[in-house]
């Protein structure tokens, strides 16, 4: 592929499956599907335990993206959609998940997913999504107490980072590391608009800045923007970051620097991916709703 045709924005699609859980004897298969504006994920729980997940790019068609994510999570397992007992759809495309039994907001799902991933001590969650950014306060059970989200704008989101990756010709997964390979921290670029930030980045390159320095200025701008969002709702420990940008140390460490609060990290060697927190929360909701339904059916049967 020529340098010009290379897609610097393209992030790795992730997949996970475990042999520790036998889905055929698990009793129930519940699924959470998060169709976001940029990425889609499916998480499969077998008997309430994490069995597999898959994260892929959202296409132009939400139902197809949901199907692609689910088939990726089922790939090689011998499982089919007929084996699934309950599906919860979430994300901006949640109402278009074709096989969903229920749609639940991504705010509730991210809180529940973060509670599972990082533990019940999490009280503040920053979800840095593809095209929006939310700060969620929750209780020890992962129930949402309060939240705030940015206006509909790509600044400070994953899509903004993709645009900068393409503009500067740096693979998106290298941005975090390279943004620290600088002599001193630069002033942030425009933090109000991705289009302004892009033209400012180009101007800085022409003014002789190194690519790494421009990356640092962009990561700092993004960190400043989301930190002001965090300020509006307040930060309470523990703090956890979900969404694709959680994997960008250049932004995460600068947010920690501005807020003065260190974000919880997943344990070393963890197979979990902060980008699947929403789908994981949806799968946990699916499991709880299935159990509730079964209980109600059993009670109705006993009454007869």
């Amino acid at each position, binding site marked *: 592929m020529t340098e010009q045709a290379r897609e610097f924005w393209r992030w790795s699609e992730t997949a996970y499956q475990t042999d520790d859980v036998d889905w055929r004897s698990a009793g129930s298969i519940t699924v959470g599907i998060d169709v976001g504006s940029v990425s889609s994920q499916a998480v499969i729980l077998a008997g309430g335990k994490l069995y597999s997940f898959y994260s892929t790019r959202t296409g132009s068609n939400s139902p197809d993206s949901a199907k692609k994510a689910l088939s990726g999570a089922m790939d090689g397992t011998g499982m089919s959609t007929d084996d699934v007992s309950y599906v919860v759809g979430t994300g901006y495309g949640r109402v278009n998940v074709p096989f969903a039994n229920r749609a639940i907001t991504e705010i509730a799902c991210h809180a529940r997913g973060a509670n599972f991933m990082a533990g019940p001590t999490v009280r503040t969650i920053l979800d840095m999504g593809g095209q929006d950014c939310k700060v969620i306060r929750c209780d020890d059970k992962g129930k949402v*107490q309060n939240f705030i989200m940015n206006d509909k704008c790509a600044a400070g989101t994953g899509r903004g980072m993709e645009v900068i990756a393409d503009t500067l010709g740096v693979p998106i997964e290298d941005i975090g590391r390279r943004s620290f390979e600088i002599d001193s921290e630069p002033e942030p670029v425009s933090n109000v608009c991705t289009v302004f930030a892009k033209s400012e980045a180009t101007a800085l390159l022409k003014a002789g800045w190194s690519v790494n320095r421009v990356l640092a200025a962009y990561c700092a701008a993004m960190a400043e923007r989301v930190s002001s969002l965090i300020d509006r709702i307040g930060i309470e420990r523990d703090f956890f970051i979900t969404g694709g940008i959680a994997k960008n140390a250049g932004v995460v460490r600068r947010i920690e620097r501005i807020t003065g609060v260190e974000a919880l990290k997943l344990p070393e060697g963890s197979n979990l991916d902060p980008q699947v927190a929403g789908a994981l929360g949806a799968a946990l909701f699916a499991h709880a709703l299935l159990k509730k339904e079964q209980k109600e059916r059993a009670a109705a049967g006993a009454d007869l």
Partner: protein
Amino acid sequence: MIANYGYRDGSGEYYITIDTDRCIGCEGRWCVAACPQGLFAIEMDDYDDEVAMIVVPGRKLLKEKCSECKPAGERTFLPCTSACLPGALSHSW
């Protein structure tokens, strides 16, 4: 959960805030009857609790609909917040 429904007009940004935890167990549903614009409904939230919400078609019309009740002159109270006995409703005016 604290649910904020906001709008912006020429005089600033405003929010109707519903503390939905206080709606749980409310049988009066006074907000639904009190709002002259019919903006409130009781619906199931993500946790299967019946709570007050602003109806979907009303969310983008708050600027026009809420301004009818804006405290001004002799009108000093809001029908919705005054009617809500559990104290779940507040308005940033």
